[in-house]
């Protein structure tokens, strides 16, 4: 098929890039190589939680932090994308979320500090409104609420950690558990089952009643696993606050993450509804380059070969999760140009000895120039009409600094601008 601009990817980077192109009046085709990383890695948009992977103090002002990061690290993906791309891209995303029916809050000027399912305070920037009441800058007591038989949110664990870590243990944190009407704790149910149930008013009111009776503290906030509706989260959250009589906030859980599902499913549906063409489950395996430009890319789509011919290509891959790289024991290659992106004497070299430290494998990617074009060793672009965003960029590691969403937005937005100019 022929296309204006082909975007390859399935995470937030690809969504933002596609939306940017769409809003600019271009005609993008979105190619999903595999499962979306939104299911696993996203709940909110973290822009910059910490100044470095080893700093302990969370940043209050993410935009100030990004400005400083750019000044100190000219090769950082944020620096290559530019602060303007982060700001414009964030505005574009927030506007899009509103248009798609989400209620999100937050600004780049300020981090919220939200409790995780482990009970750790975590800085986060742009978040669903249903998470906002968890902000630890506020003083009200927190009651973590879990459900009998539900394994993916342990209120007692969250409370045990947060009671230690929140302002040196000076705040009130507790945990309650209630049984769910009609749900047998010895039967298998997942976050998705619960989220569906919470869309039912009678079910929700019954749970709210049980929580009202279980929670003793007046004025306490209730922290619940993110299961307040699979699709109609705005209504469910607002209703549930009324029904419980407490501020309520959602907390992301292990996969399947309902927050990620909501985001991914609605945004991709919105793109489809507004006319963006998509090719599903189509990993690329080759790109043809002629006269310094990429002529077409070859996909394995739905059991057959398909090629896409576009004026420009935007590779918005999320590292390895969506199958961006072909990693053998020694060599990591990209699926388009078969470039050797990394070579290791042993596979263990790709890792740190500790899971909780920055991982060398996370930084594997295309070396890029300031236009986000993948480049050869001599600095020349592999193809002048190809641009990289997100985890595909060498040195891209949002994990330790907690910047996955912001880096996705900034590079996705910037690469889209470059692709339009190509």
């Amino acid at each position, binding site marked *: 098929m022929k296309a204006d601009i082909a975007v390859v990817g399935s995470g937030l980077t690809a969504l933002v890039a596609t939306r940017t192109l769409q809003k600019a009046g271009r005609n993008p085709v979105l190619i999903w190589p595999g499962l979306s*990383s939104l299911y*696993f*890695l996203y*709940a909110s948009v*973290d822009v910059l*939680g910490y100044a470095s992977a*080893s700093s*302990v103090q969370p940043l209050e002002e993410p935009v100030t932090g990004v400005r400083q990061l750019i000044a100190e690290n000219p090769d950082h993906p944020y620096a290559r994308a530019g602060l303007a791309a982060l700001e414009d891209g964030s505005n574009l995303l927030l506007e899009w979320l509103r248009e798609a029916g989400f209620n999100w809050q937050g600004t780049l000027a300020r981090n919220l500090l939200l409790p*995780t*399912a*482990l*009970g*750790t*305070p*975590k800085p986060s920037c742009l978040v669903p409104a249903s998470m906002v009441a968890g902000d630890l800058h506020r003083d009200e007591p927190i009651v973590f609420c879990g459900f009998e*038989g539900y*394994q*993916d949110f*342990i209120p*007692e*664990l969250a409370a*045990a*950690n*947060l*009671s*230690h*870590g929140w302002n040196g243990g000076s705040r009130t944190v507790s945990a309650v558990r209630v049984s769910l009407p009609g749900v047998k*704790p*010895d*039967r*298998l149910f997942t976050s998705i089952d619960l989220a569906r149930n919470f869309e039912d008013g009678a079910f929700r009111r019954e749970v709210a009643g049980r929580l009202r009776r279980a929670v003793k503290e007046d004025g306490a906030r209730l922290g619940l696993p993110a299961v307040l509706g699979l699709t109609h989260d705005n209504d469910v959250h607002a209703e549930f606050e009324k029904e419980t009589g407490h501020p309520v906030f959602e907390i*992301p859980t*292990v*996969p399947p*993450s309902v927050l990620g599902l909501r985001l991914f499913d609605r945004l991709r549906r919105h793109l489809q509804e507004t006319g963006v063409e998509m090719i599903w489950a189509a990993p690329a395996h080759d790109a043809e380059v002629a006269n310094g430009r990429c002529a077409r890319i070859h996909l394995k789509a739905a059991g057959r070969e398909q090629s896409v011919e576009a004026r420009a290509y935007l590779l918005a891959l999320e*590292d*390895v*999760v969506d*199958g961006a790289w072909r*990693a*053998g024991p020694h060599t990591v290659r990209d699926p388009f140009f078969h470039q050797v992106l990394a070579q290791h*004497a*042993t*596979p*263990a070299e*790709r*890792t*740190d*000895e*500790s*899971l*909780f*430290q920055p991982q060398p*494998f*996370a930084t594997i990617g295309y070396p890029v120039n300031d236009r986000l074009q993948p480049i050869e060793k001599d600095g020349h672009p592999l193809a002048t009409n190809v641009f990289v965003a997100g985890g595909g960029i060498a040195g891209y590691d*949002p*994990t*330790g600094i*907690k910047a*996955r969403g912001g880096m996705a937005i900034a590079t996705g937005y910037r690469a889209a601008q470059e692709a339009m100019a190509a």
Partner: protein
Amino acid sequence: MPDTSTGVVVIGGGSTGAGVLRDLTLRGIDAILVEKGDLASGTTGRSHGLLHSGGRYCVNDLAAAIECVEEGRILRRIARTTVEDTGGYFVSVSEEDEAWEPRFVEGCQKAGITCERISVEEARRREPALSTRVRTVFWVPEDGHLDPFYLVVGNVESARRRGAQIRTYTEAIGFTRTGNRISGVLTRDAMTGEETSIGCQAVVNATGAWSGFVARLLDVEVKVVPVKGVMVVLSRRLAHAAINRCHKPGDGDIVVPGLSVAILGTTAVKVPHPEVLPIEWDEVQLLIDEGAKMLDGVTTARAMRAYAGVRPLYDLGAEAEGREMSRNFAVIDHEERDGVAGFTSIVGGKVTTYRLMAERVADLVARRLGVTNPCTTAEVPLNDREDEMDQLRHRPAQLGVPKPHGDELALQPLLCECELVRPQDVEGWMKDPAVRTLEDIRRRTRSGMGPCQAAICSYRLAGRMVTDRGVDGQTATRAMADFLETRWRGVRHVFWGSQLRQAQVTAGLHLELFNADRQLQEYFPPPLGEGQGGGVPAEAVEAVSQP
């Protein structure tokens, strides 16, 4: 006065120590087992799990082969639920292998090993993954898979019901003597540091590769050479049966199917210390290359992790007296050899022959204690109480434990989806004081052993530490991190393809969604002057290195 008293203290909670404990107890002898880590956390739990038919030894070590034949048959009687009757094949893939075949066939005949040559076509019909390089195939029905942890727990629980005590995370740090006779053992809790003395009449040193260290506390020498073996775990079985190379036993010549996985074994490298077991890349590569000569799919299957175990190879050179000897293992009577009355070591051997080893050492100890009751471990089954194994642990899919109907099973919640572990399978263990870490839970339930390597169940288990054991957040978070780090150390060595993708999900979940690196930093801040932090403290990482 000692804090407590018993007849015999058995040191070592591997298959040998557990076997000795049970054997003594069945003879009516009062005994306590002390183990410095968890049960089966040393050599036993890190074996590849082959129940030897004897085929691998029948040419070079006929006595050992015969022991395997006999013990394999006994184990199928007394420990039915720990054995999966996979059968095995010995396959030739080269001319050198073919030259070995007549010696192999002769060895099987001499040892009494059932062995049948079948056509390659027939073999491939049974095992479609057999490589096209395979030239000759022998079917050896008595190879099997032995669940080493289940075996140890079965022995220990059987002994416990007869009054024996089991103390895990309890290290023997000294002995008391009356004249030339041992009169007690001083132990230390590995976690609390609390010291306890146990008065006794005899001590059995069943610590395998660690035997020399225990003997040295009494100024006695036991020469054990620790020999490392590396193994690689694939996420699928690839074959129904164990696949052995038909040649002189060497590196990378066996693929053992165990429950849902296949284990590629193994290498043999002398190491300076039984706890120094580095996994080298050339070993991992060799296992995959050699395995691929026998089975297709070894190179393309998802490798989940690599791990290393240590064999306690007994140095027979200087030992001429004071022991009953087999080609396979040795009982050292230190009273006769060194003048230390009441102290006996058992060294060498293999999991398949653990019962025989226990019998030999218990014979000696019983004789010295004047107990004439004979050994009954070859007759009395481990699960001599109704449904004992059900209560020990549920492995519904694999071990023939009575299970609910298929659709009911599917509707039950799972704590570990990869290994089909249900919440109720861990409940009892969570309350067991012998269980200290999430690795201990893993050994007992298989939780965390599947493709995701504890990414999900570690959170649920940490939660249960709080709800079921009442620990604080710091302890639970540390337990979760230690568990993940232990898994990580095995995953790192097979870090390509699917496991690399898995790692990004694991890191994303724990470091981004949970912000666990910062939680760890808060509980365990890095030492002053060090910029890096957030990892689990080094001493916690070094403390455990398990499969």
